[in-house]
């Protein structure tokens, strides 16, 4: 197994530093929001982790299509890594959103389009993992996973639009009409800067984790190979 390349090692350090820097900015640099005070600060993490989730989602979809076209096992490893990361980060985003929602709207959960779609996406990810678990043959597992990724990737935007449609024609009292949905509290330039920095920092963290997870996948594959060679 190749040891971590220099770039990756540097990236590890950079990621940690950026994360700490983002934390610093959120707590020290960004001003307190007028009505929400400290609770509003979780917004930065909510946005940043949701953003990473999106990156993972897109990466998974692309990897899936690439696998179907090229039949190269490495795209399957990339796809699984992307799904796992996206799953975890969206979970964090949802949790952060809930923590924010309680004091803002009085409830941990609302059936707001973004939130609901994220929850559905999580279900799709879990279904994906269960699907993989039920298949032994690596080629079939990769094929089916890629197909399901494609189906999921196409259905999620449609789902989001359906829920939006559902909500606009029948507006709900709590949630979408409130000023606090999607950070539509007025953001000062310092807040914007913090937000963009957080997005940037988390993007780097995403790449770092992604790289590590892909390496892990390759390592697992090598172990499988060794096992088989032993048996034969």
């Amino acid at each position: 197994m190749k040891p971590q390349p220099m770039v990756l090692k540097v990236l590890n350090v950079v990621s940690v530093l950026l994360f700490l820097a983002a934390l610093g900015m959120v707590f020290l640099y960004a001003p307190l929001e007028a009505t929400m005070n400290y609770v509003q600060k979780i917004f930065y993490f909510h946005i940043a982790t949701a953003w990473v989730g999106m990156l993972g989602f897109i990466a998974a979809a692309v990897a899936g299509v690439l696998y179907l076209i090229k039949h190269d096992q490495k795209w399957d490893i990339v796809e699984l890594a992307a799904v796992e990361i996206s799953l975890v980060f969206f979970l964090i985003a949802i949790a952060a959103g809930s923590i924010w929602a309680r004091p803002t709207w009085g409830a941990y959960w609302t059936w707001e389009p973004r939130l609901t779609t994220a929850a559905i996406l999580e279900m799709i990810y879990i279904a994906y993992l269960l699907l993989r678990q039920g298949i032994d043959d690596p080629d079939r597992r990769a094929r089916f996973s890629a197909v399901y990724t494609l189906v999921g990737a196409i259905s999620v935007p449609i789902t989001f639009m359906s829920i939006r449609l559902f909500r606009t024609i029948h507006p709900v009292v709590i949630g979408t009409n409130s000023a606090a949905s999607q950070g539509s509290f007025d953001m000062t330039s310092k807040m914007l800067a913090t937000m963009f920095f957080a997005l940037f920092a988390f993007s780097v963290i995403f790449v770092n984790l992604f790289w590590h997870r892909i390496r892990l996948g390759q390592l697992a594959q090598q172990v499988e190979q060794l096992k088989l060679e032993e048996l034969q």
Partner: protein
Amino acid sequence: MIAVKKLVKRFGLKTVLRGLDFEVQEGEFVALLGPNGAGKTTFLRILASLSRPTLGEVRVAGFRLPIQAAAVRRNLGVVSHLPLLYGDLTAEENLRFFGRIYSVLELSQRIDEVLELVGLNSRRRDLVRTFSRGMQQRLAIGRAILHDPEVLLFDEPHTGLDQDACDMLDRLLREVAGQGRTVVMTSHDLARVEDLASRFDVLSRGVISASASRNDLGKNNLLDFYRQALSG
């Protein structure tokens, strides 16, 4: 009729067929022997166009697999140890269905011929669900020759049959093969194939380790030949 060069088949990281070479002339009846797990069924599935080769060249009835799979399928009849028949349809309906998807001309007449040949004319309106295993195998053979293919593949057709049924099956096999068709049959039962085949090949450790024609072997030497092929 069948030409296989350096066929490699991998399932994920496991290699089942390792550069297998195999050739069958028109009209030959080849018995493919080998221990469990040697890859006989895998090999047959590749010849049947149900599975793709990882590497190597496969030609059946003059067409290349997997590119010209559709053309191959037109000239191929397959009987496996699973019946491949619909239990809730009658014998006649089963044949009618397969006749339709194979685009067989003058279907009704052909169905009559085939039912007569396999000796199931009296049971044509009975549900396949009610057939004994022997009868199902006979009907399966009928299905396989319905479109008059040049090549027949049998995967352990005697599985689960009692003595009488086996004898009846053998009679049918001889008759069907006697029509100038090329046959490849895998089997465990050396005694059975001894009288049927014109050539005996042994698949062991992912390649054809030995091949002998009936004339070369003489009577009752099949077992020795087989044992030798496995140990060598």
